[in-house]
């Protein structure tokens, strides 16, 4: 009985256990702070956070900030992905260039790219574009390395066969390299979503006039820990929404694949 009850395939039991875990954590948090065992000043309290969140949406004061952050993130995500895909394909298909640029790419990738934020603020101002630029530098490398890897993993037999079938080099790109790289791209996109958010929020910390990151920074300045936590929760929810969107696209485009591919993990 015991084994069947805790069956990982039983979705209802899994869902209930998850809710229990979440509820238990919130209850513990509420107990600890309301009894004064830990200070609500430093740790916030769940009721205050919920009140803050509801207040934001009821008054509508959150919308311009949320909109700004989402636009920055989505733009960074899209531009970074397209650039990463393009450069990855290009370099993977020209071995000479790949060898020449190898040390530079390694250097750029190992560099903590968040330090570009002040430079981008100078170049692009305090508007959304400095955050987009920061997000792009982060997203680009994750996608780039995966595409690069993906193209090199193309099965030689499939490639030779498609050539024998009479494909031109453009047709090879469209019918072999791109679809083969796509599975790698999609697994990298899950990383890229999170990283794009990092880019926008860090950019907003360092200088902005709008955005959820800016809101969190303001709240931190006046020790309003509830608002900080509410902001973090909001970002988490939207990161999950974007990630789910990517998964939906993935399920559609990757339906030919028996199981999801592996990914070269990225870092921010």
């Amino acid at each position, binding site marked *: 009985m015991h084994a069947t009850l805790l069956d990982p395939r039983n979705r209802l039991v899994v869902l209930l256990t998850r809710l229990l875990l979440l509820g238990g954590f919130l209850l513990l948090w509420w107990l600890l702070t309301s009894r004064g065992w830990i200070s609500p000043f430093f740790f916030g309290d769940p009721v205050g956070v919920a009140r803050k969140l509801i207040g934001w949406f009821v008054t509508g004061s959150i919308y311009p900030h949320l909109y700004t952050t989402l636009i920055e993130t989505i733009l960074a995500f899209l531009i970074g992905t397209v650039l990463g895909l393009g450069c990855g394909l290009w370099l993977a298909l020209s071995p000479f260039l790949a060898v020449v640029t190898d040390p530079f790419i390694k250097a750029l990738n190992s560099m903590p790219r968040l330090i570009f934020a002040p430079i981008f603020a100078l170049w692009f101002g305090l508007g959304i574009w400095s955050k987009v630029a920061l997000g792009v530098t982060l997203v680009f490398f994750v996608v780039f390395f995966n595409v690069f890897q993906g193209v090199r993993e193309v099965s030689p*037999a499939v490639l*030779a066969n498609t050539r024998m079938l009479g*494909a031109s080099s453009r047709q090879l790109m469209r019918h072999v390299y791109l679809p083969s790289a796509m599975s790698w791209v999609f697994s990298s996109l899950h990383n890229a979503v999170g990283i794009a958010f990092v880019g926008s929020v860090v950019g907003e910390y360092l200088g902005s006039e709008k955005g959820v990151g800016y809101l969190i920074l303001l709240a931190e300045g006046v020790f309003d820990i509830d608002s900080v936590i509410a902001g973090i929760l909001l970002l988490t929810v939207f990161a999950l929404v974007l990630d789910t969107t990517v998964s939906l696209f993935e399920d559609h485009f990757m339906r*030919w*694949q028996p199981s999801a591919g592996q990914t070269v993990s990225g870092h921010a």
Partner: protein
Amino acid sequence: MTAALRSVEAERRPQNALEALRFDGVTCAFASNERRGRTYTAVSEGKSTLLNVAAGLIRPSSGTLSVFGQPLKQGLNKDAAYLFQVDALMPWKTAEDNIAAGLIFHGKSKAEAIATAREWLLRVGLHGHGRKYPHQLSGGMRKRAGLAQALALDPRILLMDEPFSALDIQTRHLMEDELLRLWSTDRKSVVFVTHDLEEAISLSDRVVVMSAGPATKPIAEFDIDLQRPREVAEIRMTQRFLQLHAQIWQVLRREVLKSYARNPA
């Protein structure tokens, strides 16, 4: 390992037969072999290499390759289709789209290509499986799709590199019969590399035995005068088949033993 190679010719026209492929002193980087005359060769370690040379996928280190009398200097052999040992279908395309892809590459319209692909699905016994992706098909079905993909282009030469070696023995016999049936309708030139002597004899018009590696070369040639049409399971019981088998095996065995002496199994 020794490869027995067999070739199925377009027609039995001993003297004035058209030369489909001709290797003249072709040497390859991996294994070299020398061959003159109107035939097809393959080498044990370099047999795939030789087929790749025939396909134009790689250039021979020296020597020349002629296709129907025309030397192949650059590019792929446009007259040839190639069935690989491993699965080479595009995994992101359905069986139907895979077969249609070659036709689209050759300039056919999409609708036309799909229509031809459907005909071929029927012909290779994959009716109703056209919308499946390769990973949803069994090994034998993937080979059928691969065969249809190659034949749909109506090539003059079909190169086959141990195409059925990964299949279980029953599926293998089915596929051999399938190949005989498909071949009998338009009688293309087929170069078929195999380690399976029975497969070689039952399918071909001529078997060329290649010497053990590394510097492999063709060492013997046998004409297979078994009647057509053939049925793989039946033909293997006939007296003539057993005679041929014994004859070829005598030559082949020496090479196998040589090869084992070098690399014990």
